[in-house]
């Protein structure tokens, strides 16, 4: 099974159409909604954890793109700016998924984008503001 977290951005003109349910119906994919910002006539955003076969996943993503949605891996929207990070560790107690963690040997703060659920708590908990999240 293949599991991946993706960010789906809806253009304003299709935000009122039912689309993602087709991932389940037509492509046999399971998804878990981690975050959603959907308003009428405005660009919408969905963060999904999608699970299925790799082939179905790729076909599903292709379908979404054909419908005019933008699809990106979550790791593209959440970044640890290593120019700014001082590796203090103030973020690690808040990260609910353990995506941000301290490496015991190097004592560096590491970020595992695959574990991130896009909650954005780290953004303001980081004193040098090194976590950059673009989920608007």
């Amino acid at each position, binding site marked *: 099974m293949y599991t991946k977290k993706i960010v789906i951005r809806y253009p304003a003109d299709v935000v009122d159409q039912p689309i993602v349910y087709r991932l389940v119906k037509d492509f046999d994919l399971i998804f878990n909604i981690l975050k959603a910002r959907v308003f009428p006539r405005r660009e919408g955003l969905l963060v999904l954890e999608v699970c299925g076969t790799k082939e179905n996943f790729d076909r599903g993503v292709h379908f979404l793109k054909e419908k005019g949605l933008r699809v990106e891996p979550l790791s593209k929207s959440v970044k640890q700016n290593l120019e700014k990070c*001082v*590796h*203090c*560790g*103030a*973020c*690690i*107690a*808040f990260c609910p998924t353990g995506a941000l963690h*301290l490496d*015991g040997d*190097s*004592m*560096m*703060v590491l970020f595992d984008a695959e574990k991130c659920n896009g909650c954005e708590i780290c953004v*303001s*908990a980081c*004193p*040098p*503001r090194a976590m950059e999240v673009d989920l608007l």
Partner: protein
Amino acid sequence: MSGHRVQKTYREINEKIKQGKAVVVTAEEMIDIVQRHGDVEAAKRIDVVTTGTFAPMCSSGAFLNFGHASPRIKAMKVWLNDVQAYGGVAAADCYIGATEVAEGDPLNSVYPGEFHYGGGHVIEDLVAGNVIKLRAEGYGTDCYPARKFEKNITIRDLRDAVLFNPRNAYQNYNCAVNMSDKTIYTYMGVLRPRMGNANYSTSGQLSPLFNDPYYKTIGIGTRIFLGGAQGYVAWQGTQHNPHVGRGENGVPRGGAGTIATIGDLKEMTPEWLVGASFLGYGVSLYVGIGIPIPVLNEEMARYAAVKDEDIFTQVYDYGMDYPKGGELKSLGEVSYGELRSGSIRLHGKVIPTAPLSSYYKARQIAHVLKNWIEKGAFLLGEPQKLLSSELSSE
């Protein structure tokens, strides 16, 4: 200082440094050396132990002299990027403090405030060479007639820029938890309710004052790594308090000694002075400091080999006990070994820990300082007067 089997002087060690023969190790490396060879042998072999710390340190700031404008102004009020600096020093001098918040910041009116920019960030921007908007107001005198002055400057336009931090490098500090039912936003970071996390802020075994617990080599004139340049200990820090409970190894079991530091801001780098924003609390400045500990004798070798497992601090409740003031009630004593392991056990509960102090950068500082001394680019500064200690007051 009699009764030591090894005795070295500052002058002897400095001679070795000049000849490129000094043996220098970091405080981490020293632990193993003393464990393996004993303190006497370690003192014979090792000349200097380097330490490091990199943490948000309030009670930091810089004196700036911006020269005279034409016409001249007696700057009574001064702003740098809309952050107010204290202008009541002299006509063209001001002091920018690390915790001053930019004017117009909503503060905590939208709780918790984000505090994006303040004095700490101004200092970081200055050392980075970024353009800063300087604004000053005066009331006009016969010799200083101008009332307003505004100019975009960089640190190169300043006649003088001196980092002068009244209290740095705290020897030990509280571990903070929150026993209340709501999340709180403190200078110790965000603390989740019902002891959801425990925050601490020292570099433990690498921290300067843990490696010389009775301040036998640290005092006024000690040359140090400060913000990436060579600086000095200027005085004992504010709130310096040697009279606290100590372990058998002499290490205080709670906040104790502090130092005031001074150095040329123009020589410093933004890698080691970083502005900090604390959600719901305010702004501060991460300061990088490293102090070389001369191994004058086996006693100093022993001190400089202290390890996290033997350094303890107290856990306090920042939800109710700390804010109300007065005597704090320790919820328990934990070692830095436990704190650095990722969790502590308190009242039967396992609590995840998070540092505010960067051990990674502290280690880098100890290595940079080691490198400077090995190259002969950094000589030990013999203190003119040691920090007051419980020993010296007897």
